[in-house]
């Protein structure tokens, strides 16, 4: 229990950061943000890349949980799953921005004290 609870969240974060560390993959996420539920063929048509290349990128995004696929008849549809980004936000961004805000509040307090 403790092993997994410590290990899993960080592993998840690694995969998400790696998946996001590539312009093509970020572009694919932006396309899905505009309109979800797209096929590989649709996504491929907007990129100057082979079908195999796009498939590989989608696979990385899927492994990181950023893309979820569903079958609809013969088609495989790709959906953006923003939850892992939200988790990173809650885990990392909030933490540091809160500090910034607190630092500014302290500064304001100090300046007002000395005024």
């Amino acid at each position, binding site marked *: 229990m403790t092993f997994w609870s410590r290990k899993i969240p960080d592993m998840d974060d690694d995969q998400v950061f790696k998946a996001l560390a590539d312009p093509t993959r970020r572009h694919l996420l932006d396309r899905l943000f505009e309109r979800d539920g797209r096929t590989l063929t649709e996504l491929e048509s907007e990129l100057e890349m082979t079908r195999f290349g796009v498939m590989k990128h989608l696979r990385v995004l899927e492994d990181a949980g950023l893309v979820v696929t569903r079958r609809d008849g013969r088609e495989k549809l790709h959906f953006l799953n923003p939850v892992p980004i939200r988790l990173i936000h*809650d885990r990392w961004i909030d933490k540091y921005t809160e500090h910034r805000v607190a630092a500014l509040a302290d500064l304001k307090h100090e300046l007002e004290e000395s005024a």
Partner: protein
Amino acid sequence: MTTLTAQTTQIYSVFILATPEQIWDAITKSEFTQQYFYGARIDVHDGRRFCSIGDTEWDEEVLEADPPRRLVHGWVSAYDPDLAAEEQSRVSWEIEPQDGGITKLTVVHDQLEAAPKTAENVAGGWMYILSGLKTLLETGKPLAG
């Protein structure tokens, strides 16, 4: 959330260190939902999903219940008068156990074609709810803030 057009099928998925039974309880009992679902008290029983936020109470039809794997219910945004007039949409909770004590929870919110304002409204909300549910089940505490 700024979307060009809010999606009529939205899918959200999260891995949680919890059993399917724990997740089932967390989505069907108000003692849990009020800690991560915008304070809403939600209880699923007798084929209905009873909800209350503040003074507003309403209930939704349960379309499918297969504990602890699958729950499908109608969705009415009764919490906001502007959205309440829109057509009912549908929410499916899929609970799939994985290796290592992890469970994958997927929420599919679809049939939103006749509920564009609801579609826009829930897009950011589901992320917050699932993040909060994960935190609650893994740490025993609600998400701070």
